[in-house]
């Protein structure tokens, strides 16, 4: 499976050394991933590894993965900004030791409990390496004495999702949503992806390649959205060529948020592999 990671159209692939690996096999998994990342060709795929907590073998994980050339390290169960700082320091030490460019290893922090959710704004600002924060919902709902209700719009996650989004947006990094674990229920997965797109998330973690097209389809702009974005861009270009200060499209004024949204739509369309003629 590791060697096929690049073929399914995901933007990033996350390997796990943490919860999906039994305590007895932490060493073998680490060696396996170390060798795999060093040898296999992952193309343009962003490689991410979920490491163990620093006191549970995470230091060896960091030393092995930074050296192997992983692009992003995902810290599990982040509770405070200090957790991020400690991991950042360990990564810096590893980068120095193997001669890798300082700061080239990026980080993601997974927030998986109520303390982490409440500390999200500080966590999101704790390291320059951070490219995003992510919600890990399974542990979170258990701590909150509930469970997941994806069929009921996931209201149990509304606060956590909102906190993480606000923290991420305020810090200027990405916000990523939790996994959906029933790999045979594509309808509910689609609904959940639509919900988190509506909230403003940048993406969603998946656990099976079959989930990728479903999530990608939700995040891919419709032709109508693309056409509208292109019209916005054309209106700007026309206004600029005329030296006009006020830009309007179909009688509506175009202001900065509209321009930003148009650009985001076009960026997503290109990322989805759609042919966009500007």
């Amino acid at each position, binding site marked *: 499976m590791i060697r096929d990671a690049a073929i399914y159209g995901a933007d990033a692939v996350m390997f796990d050394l943490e919860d999906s690996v039994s305590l007895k096999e932490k*060493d073998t998994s680490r*060696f*396996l991933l170390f*060798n*795999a990342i060093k040898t296999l060709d992952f193309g343009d795929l962003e490689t991410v590894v979920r490491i163990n907590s620093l006191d549970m073998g995470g230091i*060896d994980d960091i030393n092995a993965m930074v050296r*192997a050339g992983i692009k992003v390290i995902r810290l599990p169960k982040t509770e405070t900004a200090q957790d991020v700082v400690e991991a950042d320091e360990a990564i810096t030490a590893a980068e120095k*030791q*193997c001669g890798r460019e300082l700061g080239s290893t990026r980080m993601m922090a997974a927030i998986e409990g109520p303390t982490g959710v409440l500390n999200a704004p500080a966590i999101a600002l704790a390291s320059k390496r951070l490219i995003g924060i992510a919600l890990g919902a399974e542990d979170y709902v258990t701590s909150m004495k509930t469970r997941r209700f994806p069929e009921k719009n996931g209201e149990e996650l509304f606060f956590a999702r909102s906190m993480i989004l606000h923290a991420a947006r305020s810090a200027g990094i990405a916000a990523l949503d939790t996994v959906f674990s029933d790999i045979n229920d594509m309808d509910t997965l689609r609904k959940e992806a639509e919900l988190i797109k509506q909230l403003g998330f940048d993406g969603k973690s998946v656990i099976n390649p079959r989930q990728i097209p479903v999530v990608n389809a939700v995040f891919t702009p419709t032709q109508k959205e693309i056409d509208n974005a292109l019209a916005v861009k054309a209106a700007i270009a026309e206004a600029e060529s005329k030296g006009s200060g006020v830009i309007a499209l179909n009688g509506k004024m175009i202001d900065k948020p509209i321009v930003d949204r148009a650009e985001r739509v076009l960026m997503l369309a290109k990322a989805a592999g759609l042919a966009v003629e500007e």
Partner: protein
Amino acid sequence: MGKVVIKHQATAGTAESSDIQIVIDGNDNGVDINLVSSVENQFGKQIRKVIRETLDHLGVENAKIVAVDKGALDCTIVARVTAAVMRSADQNKDYDWEALDTWNA
């Protein structure tokens, strides 16, 4: 890397497809490899070579290896042999990644 002495028998890997299970034990004189592989005809020589080279790099001079291969890639074989050697030498943390990195392709 310095010499590694096998203290006791150790196992790493599984008998699942695309994996290799390595059982390592002490040996008096040199390295003995007993390999059963689903791809013996096509890759038997290569698998033995990778096992032997990995042991060399790790500084293991004497070992008995029983390997059951189900079509593992070379990088998997290196990883499983390394893990088995470390386990047999009771080394379970603070590995010398720098040393491992130097010879690992």
